[in-house]
């Protein structure tokens, strides 16, 4: 037997086939859809996953595949030496960038299914955090698969230290609250920065996300470096006629007034008034009484920076960089978004590239430099315009800190937990 490249005392010993199979079987029961039964329908080496579950360690190690010309978008794995799988199993996948709206016609999907069967394992991961479809391919067919994907109008990309695929919420495509055309915004970013998306050249990854309204279903503020959120200034607009109808139909006006977090809504003598100075754009009244109450007339975009999870300082929410850019035509916000892009392209990103440490995202640079210094030095803006606390403005916090619990503390905690669990029944 050949000697393993690893120190065997540090890694788990490979479990038997029975143990692995038992762990997999346990995941096929129950009403929730099972990934194991789904994976069994493909060429995925499911035994390896079972071994990982039984040994409680990941069965994969990093690997590199030869994919000439593809600098971002292909990720490779090999079975970890501790699994002693001989010959080693390779796992390669491509990230496929799909259209903005994340709407796919079945024609294209069938094409992808064909490519995946022909060149890969017949397995997809639909939309990871990056907004791409992940397709497993055979190691020697990576380039063929990428070519076929390019043929049908899609593209492989979005991994490594590049600009990742930017994601937009469905916005005007399916949602009535959308304040600007998020899909257009996303298409524009990607087109402008194709170079950033092609070649790894930054300290770490860059992510853009476009949210149509302050509800932020996309969780853009928590997940992207550069966030564009649709918002408005002043009070939401009220359509008197429709509102009268809404009240007649049994709309709960009292509840509406009570739901306002800042008490900006007044209901007096059959007339509804919303105080624009108090409004924090929480969308509560809009949600309850749309279309009688809709986002205000003075619409715009708010740009936030630095909300990331995977980074040096742990998870954090994004902070407002530009509080408000008024937009003239919500369905064509080209000029306004372009103006921000220029700022990012000429100042923020090059500066981050210069001062950022390795594996440090823009939010970490902001923490390291301090927000005021970040605004003046990196973004080149007047801090008086930006650094101000307004009620309801998305605030910034340092993330969930990591910690280690001692073994005694763990034991004490679990004991206490088991005690109270008995009462739950």
């Amino acid at each position: 037997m050949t000697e393993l490249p690893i120190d065997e005392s540090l890694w788990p010993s490979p479990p038997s086939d029975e143990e692995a199979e038992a762990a997999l079987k346990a995941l096929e029961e129950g009403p929730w859809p099972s990934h194991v039964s789904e994976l069994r329908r493909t060429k995925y080496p499911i035994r390896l996953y079972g071994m990982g579950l039984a040994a409680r360690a990941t069965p994969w190690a990093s690997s590199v595949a030869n994919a000439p010309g593809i600098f971002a978008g292909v990720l490779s794995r090999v079975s970890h030496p501790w699994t002693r799988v001989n010959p080693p199993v390779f796992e390669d996948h491509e990230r496929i960038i799909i259209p903005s709206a994340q709407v796919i016609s079945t024609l294209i999907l069938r094409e992808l299914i064909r490519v995946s069967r022909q060149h890969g394992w017949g397995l997809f991961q639909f939309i990871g955090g990056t907004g791409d479809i992940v397709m497993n391919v055979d190691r020697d067919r990576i380039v063929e698969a990428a070519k076929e994907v390019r043929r049908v109008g899609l593209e492989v990309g979005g991994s490594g230290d590049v600009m990742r695929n930017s994601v937009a919420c469905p916005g005007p495509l399916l949602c009535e609250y959308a304040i600007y055309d998020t899909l257009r915004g996303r298409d524009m970013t990607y087109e402008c920065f194709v170079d950033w998306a092609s070649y790894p050249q930054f300290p770490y990854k860059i992510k853009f996300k476009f949210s149509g309204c302050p509800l932020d279903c996309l969780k853009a503020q928590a997940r992207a470096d550069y966030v564009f959120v649709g918002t408005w200034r002043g009070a939401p607009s009220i359509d008197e006629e429709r509102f009268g109808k809404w009240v007649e139909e049994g709309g709960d006006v009292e509840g509406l007034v009570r739901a306002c977090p800042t008490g900006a809504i007044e209901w007096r003598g059959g007339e509804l008034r919303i105080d624009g100075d108090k409004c924090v754009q929480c969308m509560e009244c809009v949600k309850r009484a749309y279309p009688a109450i809709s986002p205000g007339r003075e619409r715009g975009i708010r740009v936030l920076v630095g909300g990331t999870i995977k980074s040096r300082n742990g998870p954090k929410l994004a902070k407002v960089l530009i509080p408000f850019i008024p937009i003239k035509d919500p369905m064509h916000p080209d000029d306004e978004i372009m103006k921000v892009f220029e700022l990012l392209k000429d100042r923020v990103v090059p500066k981050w590239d210069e001062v950022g440490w390795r594996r440090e995202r823009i939010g970490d640079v902001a923490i390291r430099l301090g927000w005021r210094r970040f605004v003046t030095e990196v973004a080149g803006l007047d801090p008086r315009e930006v650094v101000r606390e307004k009620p309801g403005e998305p605030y910034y916090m340092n993330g969930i800190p990591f910690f280690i619990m001692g073994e005694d503390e763990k034991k004490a905690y679990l004991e206490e937990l088991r005690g109270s669990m008995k009462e739950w029944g």
Partner: protein
Amino acid sequence: MSSEPHVRDRQYSVVVRTGDVTPINHPEKLPPIPYSNYLPSILKSNMGKWVDHRMITPAIMEHVAESGDRVFTIKVIGPPNARYSADTLEKLCDLADTYGIGLVRPTPQGNLEIITDREENAHKLEEELRRAGFLVGGWGNHLWNIQPCTAYLTCTTAVVDAPSMAKAIGDALYEYVYEKETPAHLSIKVSGCPNACGGAINASDVAVVGYPAQAPVADDKWFSQVSSPSDVIAACPVGAIVAKKDASGKAYSVSVRQELCVACGRCRDTTDAMAYDPGRAGVMVLVGGKASNSGRAGQLMSKIVVPYLPNEPPRWPTLVKVVKRIVDTWVGNAERGERMGDWVARIGWDRFYELTGLPDARRFLKFTDKPGPLYQPLYKRRATEATAYLFREKPTR
């Protein structure tokens, strides 16, 4: 039932790029085809002109446009980690062609939405999907989905397995997808390590995060083959990693100073040659984050409410009980429209621990909410180091 024939919209087609698309000849990414090419006319003509939406059943959402056009979206809950086999997708494509307008929309939550333009087709689709064994539902005030990261399926840095956690929790909370209603929408994220690819753990109602709960150990034998010591040293946010040098002064591996390590896992990201003891690793549960500006509290960061639960794949009995307890308590006590974070903001954390019966996590957490020690002024950093050294975990062996 209307009797007019149903003319299916077939205006979109596959866009084919001709010419040489070999990556080595064109390494620059090709710009995407404009999204409008992929849209059927019913969506294109109503862009930005929607006026209302209505939940017909927990599986069907109706959108109404100004022009009176109506679109129905049926949500299929995906398997953990949104893993779909080609066979399953083909089945869904067939259904989308038969009853829908030939359009599917994968969502960031890992669901697959099928779009149709007729109400009776939507109901038929729901029935067909259920008959084919899919789980449908999750619109409105329901459990949207449980979104795990890839973990042991492909990830090299995962500490614990996430898809199995999602499956186990899903089996326990299955009713909230369709039968039972929750006070507001509920989304659960599951991550195998503190990198949290499973989704925004800082802004989700319930987040389960696996973490090593121990300082890693470098595999000296393997280290120099797969990584460079300086990269790993640079990755550490607290400066706990130092090089191990051989007699000639050349660094061949690293060692981790136990008393400083915060177990963030960033060294494990950089190289595979760092090992953990799986018996000491575990998961924490966070509660009450949201990115939405709604409610009284606005955006909220999640808070740790369960600092440590044991690592028990594949069925995670303790974790499932704890998560179910938290969700059930919220469902039983919150007002309508109140998300987890809003509910806790109203009742306070003391009451939260009282209601759920969980041990108060604040007694067990010893950290500041300041960023990592490297970003603190030097005198503070020294203080942190000294405290860490004084209260370090004594080696058991």
